[in-house]
C-alpha cells in the first residue's frame, strides 16, 4: 500500500528499510525509525480508536506520552501488551497492532449509538446512575469496562524474562533533551557516577525534531556528538528507552527500560524489560514540557493535532499528516509549525492567532512566506466526522472570552493548535513538591524541592533552548558538587544557538464559541474520558469547588494518559468557572507511575520456583527420592507424608502413626528454630522470657516453656536445654525462629543491656532426626555406644553428648509424640548420612519415616498444642489449660505476666482448650468449624468456640479434635454441635484434650 503522507525528506527514519505491520488486521508498511503512530499517519489512517463515553471516532493527536487517543494492543498471544500509546511504540517488522477502544470496530461501532445519547451522560453519570441499585454495579462495571476498551491481558503465562537491577549513582539525570544532555556532561566530567535516562528510542528529546543549528551543526548532529561524548565516560551509564516512572522517598527512583520491545519477534533471547531501582545522591530533572492544545468545539475530530506534533511528524519522521493546515495559536513559538509545513510543499491555509498584533521573529518569518495570519481570531469549531473538513474561525475579544464578529469557514483537513507549553512537573510532584503557577510562562513550575533534586529546562518552565542549555549545565555541575564531586562550576562552553526572541503569549485555554459553553458543540478537555468544558462548568454549578473533587466527579485526568494533555486546560476552565485564578485553584497531585508499567518488570525473576525461597533440610533429597509429599511450613519444605504405592494420604498417615505407636518412626525435625544462648546472665534472661523458670536447670537437662508477648498471649513454645553453665540451646517453632531471635535481641539490647548474654541462630547448623516409638532405644543403641541409654541415667527431658555413627552428636530425650523419643542432632553436613544410618539401624524394627501430618495427629492424641494452630494470638496459657507451665512465684515479673491478671485475661467464659470426641467415631470435624450448643437455633447462632485441630486417629480408632470453647474446661461431658454450611451438623462430646497415655508413661519409659 502506498504511504500517501510520506515525504521525501526522511528525518530520522531510514526509508530504505521498509517494515511490514498490521493494524486492526490490515497490512501496512512503514519504515525503520517510525513509531507506530508516524507509520499510521504515513498511511493516511485517520481513525485509531473510539472515546470512552461517547464512542466518538478519534485520531492521533500527539507524538509522545501525552497521546490520549491512539491506545493500542500490541502483539498477540502470551506476549501481548495492552494500552500502549502508538506514539511510543517503535515500529518493527511484523508488528501487530489493534485499537483497544473500538469494540467491535473503530469505523462502525454499536457504541457509536450511545454517542447520540451523549447529552444524557453528564459528569458524575456513573455515580448518579450506576451505583444504584447496588447489586447491579458489577453488571454495569463489566459493561463499562468492555465498552471502555481497556485492552486485554494475555491469558497465557508470560514467555518473556524480565530483569531487575539495583543501581546507585551520584547524579541521575532524567531526560536527554538539551538540558539533560549538558547536565549529564557537566556531572560526568567531575568523576561522579552518572545515569542518564530518556524514554525515547534515542537521546535528543525535542532536538530530534528541531531545525535549529547548535554550534554550527544540525541539532541532531549535535545530539549525536554529545551522546557519543557521554559514552566515552566510564562513569556514565546511558539508558535510552528508559522511563523514570516514579520518584519515591529518599531519592529512590524507578526506571523501566524497554530492552527488546522495539525488536518484536526478531528480539534475541534475554530480558524484554529491565527495572532499575535507583538510589541517587542527587537528581536533575530535565523532563521537558507538553504542548497544550486549545479547547474548541469538536476539537476531537481526527485531523486535529498539537502544533509541535505536526512539526515532529514532518521533521523527525518525514510524514505530513494531511494536506491543508490551519494553525491556531496563542504564542509565537507555534509559528514554527507553519514554517515546517510550508517547507513540505503542502498548504498552510491560515494561522489563527488569538492575539491582536503579533509581530515576533517567527511571526514575521511566516508573514514573509505569504501565509495568511488572522489576528485577534479564534478557531472556534472544527467541522467533520471521521476527518476534519473545515475550520470555523471568528474574531474574538482581547480577553479571549467572546466571539465579536462573524464566523468564516476555512476548508482544511488538518488543524494544529497550540495554547503554549506545560512543564512536565510530574516527577517533582511525586516528591510532594507543590507545583506553583507562573502566569509569566502560563505554566505550573516545580514547587520547592522536597528531596535532593532540581529541575532544569522546559520542565522548570524555561522554554527557550538556549536558556535550557545554560540551566541544564548549571544543574549538572551543582548536583555533582552536592554529591561530593567538583566545585559546582560549569566547565564546558555554552553551545552556540540562535536565541529566538518571542513576544508574550496569551493565556487562552478555552476558545469562545458563538454559543455559550453549555450550548456549544462539545469542547473536549480530556479526550480519553470525554470530559468537556461544559462538563467542568456543570460540576461547578452542582457545587464542586475543590480541584480534587472536580477531577473525581468528572474523571478529568483519569485515563491512561493521566491528564498530560488536558489537565492544565481543565484547571484553567475550572478556575474561570469558579471566578478565581489558576494559582488559587491549584492542580491535582501527580503520583507514580508516570506511564503504565508492566507487571513482568515489577516481578522480575521473582517468579515460579524463584518466587519465594524454598528452604531445604540436609535430608531433603532423601525425602524427594522416597516419594514424600511436601508441605510448606514458612519457607521450609517439610515432608508431609510418605505415601507408598497406591496409598491415599489417610492410609499413609494411619500407617505412619501406627508404626510410631507400635514400633518406631523417624521424623526430620531439622526445621525447628535453634538459638544458642551464652553468657553469665543467660539463665536469668531466659527465665524472664519464658513463663517458667530456668534458674535451676542443670547441664544435661531440658525444659519445655511457653513464651508470651507482653500482652500475656502465647507467642511461641519449645524446649530449652542447658548445655553447660551459662550456655543454653533454645528450640523454637519452625515458623517462629526469626521472630523469637529478634524478640530476644529486642529485650536484651533495648531494655536489659546490663544482662550479659549473647544469642546466635544455629538453626542451619544442625540437622535433626527424631527417632520415636517403643523401639527407639533399640535403634539408637545400634548406632551410639558412648551414651548410656538406660532410662535411669538418660531420662525423659535429659540430653547427652555422644557419637552417633562416628559423628559427634547431641541427643535430646524430648517427645512430641508421647512415645519414647530421641532427637539426634548433628552438624548439617552429616544430616543425610546420619538419617540413612538411622534408617538402616531401624530396618529390623521396620522404622517408618513420617511427615508433618502424622506428627500433627500424634501430638493431638497427646493434647500437645501447636502455636499458631491451636492458638491465634489471643490465647493465654490458662486458656490452653497450661497453667502448670506458668511460674507464678518467679522473682522477676516475666514478659506477659502482668497481663495475665488484666480483667480481660481473668474474665469468666474465656475460650478454653478441650478435646472433642464425635458421637460418630468416624466423623472428622472440619478444622475451623464453629461450635454451638443447639444446631436448631435460628441464624445467627450463638457461637461457643471453634475447632482448632481435627484428625482421624488410627491408634485410637476414632476421630479426635481440639477446640477452644467458652468455659470449656467446666463443660466436660457436654454435647456440642458443629453445623456446616450445607445444613448438616456433627455432634461431639467435650472431653479432656489428652486422648492418649494421660500419665505419660510411654514417653517417660
Amino acid at each position, binding site marked *: 500500500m502506498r504511504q500517501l503522507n510520506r515525504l521525501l525528506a526522511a528525518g530520522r527514519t531510514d526509508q530504505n528499510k521498509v517494515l511490514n505491520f498490521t493494524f486492526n488486521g490490515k497490512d501496512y508498511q512503514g519504515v525503520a525509525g517510525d513509531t507506530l503512530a508516524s507509520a499510521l499517519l504515513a498511511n493516511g489512517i485517520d481513525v485509531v480508536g473510539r472515546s470512552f463515553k461517547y464512542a466518538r471516532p478519534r485520531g492521533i493527536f500527539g507524538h509522545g506520552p501525552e497521546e490520549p487517543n491512539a491506545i493500542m494492543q500490541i502483539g498477540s498471544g502470551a506476549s501481548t501488551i495492552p494500552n500502549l500509546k502508538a506514539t511510543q511504540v517503535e515500529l518493527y517488522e511484523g508488528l501487530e497492532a489493534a485499537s483497544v477502544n473500538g469494540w467491535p470496530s473503530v469505523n462502525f461501532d454499536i457504541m457509536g449509538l450511545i454517542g447520540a445519547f451523549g447529552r444524557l451522560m453528564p459528569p458524575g453519570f456513573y455515580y448518579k446512575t450506576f451505583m444504584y441499585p447496588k447489586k447491579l454495579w458489577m453488571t454495569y462495571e463489566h459493561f463499562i469496562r468492555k465498552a471502555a476498551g481497556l485492552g486485554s491481558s494475555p491469558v497465557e503465562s508470560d514467555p518473556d524474562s524480565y530483569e531487575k537491577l*539495583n543501581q*546507585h549513582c551520584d547524579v541521575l539525570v532524567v531526560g536527554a533533551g538539551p538540558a539533560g544532555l549538558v547536565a549529564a556532561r557537566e556531572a560526568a566530567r567531575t568523576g561522579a557516577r552518572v545515569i542518564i535516562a530518556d524514554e525515547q528510542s534515542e537521546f535528543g528529546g525535542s532536538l530530534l525534531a528541531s531545525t535549529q543549528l547548535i554550534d554550527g551543526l544540525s541539532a541532531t548532529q549535535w545530539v549525536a556528538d554529545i551522546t557519543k561524548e557521554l559514552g566515552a565516560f566510564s562513569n556514565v551509564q546511558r539508558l535510552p528507552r528508559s522511563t523514570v516512572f516514579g520518584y519515591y522517598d529518599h531519592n529512590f527512583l524507578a526506571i523501566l527500560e524497554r530492552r527488546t520491545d522495539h525488536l518484536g519477534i526478531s528480539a534475541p*533471547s*534475554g530480558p524484554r524489560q529491565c527495572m532499575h531501582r535507583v538510589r541517587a545522591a542527587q537528581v536533575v530533572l530535565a523532563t521537558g514540557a507538553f504542548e497544550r492544545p486549545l479547547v474548541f468545539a469538536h476539537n476531537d475530530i481526527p485531523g486535529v493535532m498539537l502544533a509541535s506534533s505536526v512539526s515532529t511528524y514532518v521533521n523527525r519522521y518525514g510524514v505530513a499528516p494531511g494536506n491543508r493546515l490551519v494553525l491556531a495559536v496563542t504564542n509565537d513559538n507555534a509559528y514554527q509549525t507553519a514554517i515546517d509545513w510550508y517547507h513540505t510543499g503542502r498548504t498552510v491555509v491560515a494561522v489563527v492567532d488569538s492575539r491582536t498584533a503579533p509581530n515576533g521573529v517567527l511571526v514575521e518569518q511566516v508573514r514573509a512566506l505569504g501565509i495568511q495570519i488572522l489576528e485577534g481570531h479564534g478557531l472556534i469549531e472544527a467541522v467533520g466526522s471521521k476527518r476534519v473538513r473545515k475550520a470555523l474561525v471568528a474574531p474574538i475579544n482581547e480577553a479571549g472570552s467572546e466571539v465579536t464578529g462573524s464566523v468564516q469557514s476555512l476548508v482544511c483537513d488538518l488543524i494544529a493548535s497550540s495554547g503554549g507549553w506545560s512543564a512536565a512537573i510530574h516527577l517533582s510532584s511525586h516528591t510532594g513538591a507543590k507545583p506553583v503557577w507562573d502566569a509569566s510562562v502560563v505554566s505550573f513550575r516545580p514547587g520547592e524541592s522536597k528531596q535532593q533534586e532540581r529541575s532544569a529546562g522546559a520542565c522548570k518552565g524555561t522554554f527557550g533552548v538556549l536558556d535550557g542549555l545554560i540551566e541544564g549545565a548549571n544543574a549538572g555541575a551543582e548536583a555533582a558538587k552536592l554529591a561530593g564531586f567538583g566545585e559546582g562550576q560549569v566547565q564546558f562552553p555554552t553551545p552556540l544557538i540562535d536565541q529566538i526572541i518571542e513576544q508574550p503569549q496569551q493565556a487562552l485555554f478555552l476558545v469562545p464559541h458563538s454559543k455559550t459553553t453549555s450550548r456549544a458543540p462539545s469542547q473536549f478537555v480530556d479526550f480519553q474520558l470525554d470530559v468537556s468544558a461544559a462538563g467542568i462548568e456543570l460540576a461547578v454549578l452542582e457545587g464542586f469547588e475543590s480541584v480534587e473533587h472536580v477531577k473525581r466527579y468528572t474523571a478529568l485526568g483519569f485515563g491512561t494518559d493521566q491528564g498530560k494533555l488536558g489537565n492544565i486546560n481543565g484547571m484553567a476552565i475550572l478556575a474561570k468557572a469558579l471566578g478565581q485564578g489558576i494559582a488559587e485553584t491549584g492542580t491535582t497531585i501527580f503520583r507514580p507511575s508516570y506511564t503504565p508499567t508492566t507487571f513482568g518488570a515489577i516481578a522480575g525473576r521473582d517468579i515460579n520456583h524463584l518466587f519465594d525461597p524454598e*528452604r531445604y533440610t540436609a535430608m531433603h533429597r532423601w525425602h524427594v527420592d522416597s516419594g514424600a509429599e511436601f508441605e510448606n511450613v514458612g519457607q521450609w519444605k517439610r515432608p508431609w507424608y510418605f505415601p507408598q504405592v497406591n496409598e491415599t494420604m489417610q492410609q499413609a498417615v494411619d500407617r505412619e502413626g501406627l508404626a510410631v505407636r507400635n514400633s518406631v518412626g523417624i521424623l526430620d525435625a531439622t526445621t525447628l528454630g535453634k538459638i544458642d544462648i551464652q553468657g*553469665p546472665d543467660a539463665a536469668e534472661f531466659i527465665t524472664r522470657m519464658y513463663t517458667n523458670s530456668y534458674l535451676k536447670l542443670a547441664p544435661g537437662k531440658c525444659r519445655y516453656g511457653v513464651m508470651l508477648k507482653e500482652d500475656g498471649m502465647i507467642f511461641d513454645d519449645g524446649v530449652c536445654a542447658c548445655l553447660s553453665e551459662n550456655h543454653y540451646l533454645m528450640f523454637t517453632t519452625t515458623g517462629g525462629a526469626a521472630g523469637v531471635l529478634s524478640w530476644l535481641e529486642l529485650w536484651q539490647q533495648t531494655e536489659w543491656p546490663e544482662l550479659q548474654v549473647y544469642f*546466635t541462630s544455629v538453626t542451619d*547448623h544442625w540437622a535433626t532426626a527424631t527417632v520415636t516409638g517403643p523401639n527407639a532405644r533399640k535403634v539408637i543403641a545400634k548406632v551410639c555406644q558412648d551414651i548410656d541409654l538406660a532410662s535411669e541415667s538418660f531420662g525423659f527431658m535429659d540430653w547427652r553428648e555422644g557419637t552417633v555413627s562416628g559423628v559427634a552428636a547431641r541427643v535430646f530425650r524430648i517427645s512430641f509424640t508421647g512415645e519414647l523419643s530421641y532427637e539426634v542432632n548433628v552438624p548439617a*553436613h552429616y544430616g543425610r*548420612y546420619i538419617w540413612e544410618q538411622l534408617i538402616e539401624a531401624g530396618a529390623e524394627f521396620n522404622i517408618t519415616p513420617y511427615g508433618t501430618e502424622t506428627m500433627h495427629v500424634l501430638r493431638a492424641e497427646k493434647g500437645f498444642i501447636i502455636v499458631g494452630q491451636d492458638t491465634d494470638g489471643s490465647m493465654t496459657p490458662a486458656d490452653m489449660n497450661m497453667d502448670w507451665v506458668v511460674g507464678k512465684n518467679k522473682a522477676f515479673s516475666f514478659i506477659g505476666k502482668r497481663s495475665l491478671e488484666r480483667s480481660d485475661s481473668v474474665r469468666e467464659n474465656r475460650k478454653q482448650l478441650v478435646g472433642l470426641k464425635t458421637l460418630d467415631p468416624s466423623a472428622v470435624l472440619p478444622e475451623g468449624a464453629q461450635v454451638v450448643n443447639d444446631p436448631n437455633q435460628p441464624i445467627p447462632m450463638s457461637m461457643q468456640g471453634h475447632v482448632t485441630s481435627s484428625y482421624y486417629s488410627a491408634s485410637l480408632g476414632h476421630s479426635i479434635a481440639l477446640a477452644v470453647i467458652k468455659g470449656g474446661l467446666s463443660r466436660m461431658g457436654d454435647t456440642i454441635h458443629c453445623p456446616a454450611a450445607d445444613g448438616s451438623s456433627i455432634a461431639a462430646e467435650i472431653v479432656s484434650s489428652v486422648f492418649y497415655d494421660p500419665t505419660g508413661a510411654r514417653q517417660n519409659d
Partner: protein
Amino acid sequence: MTKLDAQDVILESPLHYFSKISSHPVSSNQLFNGDLEFGVVAKEIRLGCQLNLRGDASDEHFVTGAESVLGIALPTVPGTYQYNSDTAVYWLGPNEWLITSATDALELEALLRSKFEGHIAIIDVSGGQTLVNLRGHGVLTLLKKASVYDFYSWSDAVPGAGRCVQTTFAKATAIVANRTDGSFDIIIRRSFSDYIAQWLLDAGQEYGCRIESC
C-alpha cells in the same frame, strides 16, 4: 566404645547437589563443558570451620587473646575483614565476628576459650553456612541484581584485608566480601543454598553461569 573410621562418614556440603551445573544462553542447564566460557563461576570452598565470635571490642584482653590465636587482628572497622593464609575474620556487628579457618572447629574453639575470660561467646556454625567464591566478568552486575547494597562504592581489597557486608541476597541473605583478584566471596545459609544456586543459574544465564560444589 567403638568409633567408625572417618572415611565411612559421608559429608555433604550445602551445594553438594550442584556439582558442575551450568546455565548458558546457548546451551542451558547442560553438564559442565570446559569449552564454554562462563561470565560467572560460583565455586563452593571447603573450609575447616566457621565460628561465630561474640565479645567486647573494647576489652583489650579479648582483642589480644583473639589475635594471639588467629594470627590476625579482629577487624573493628565496620564492614571490613582481615585474613591470612588459612584464617579470615569478618566484622558482622559491633560485638560479633565470623571466623573461617582451616582448623577444626572444636580445636579452634578450645584454643580461643583458653585465651578468654569474662563474657564472650563462641558458636560453631560450620554446618549452617557455606562460602562460595563468585568470579567472572558478570559478577559485579550479578551483585546488582542480587542485592540492594552498593558494592561499587567499595575500595579494592588489599592483601590481608578487604570489605565485607551482611545484606540481602536475592530473597535471602548473605555475607559478601571482596577479594584482591576482583572476585567476591558470598557466605550463605545452608537451608537457602539450593534457592540461591537456582537463583545464580537464572540471574547468571546471560553471562553463562557455572556452579562447582566442593
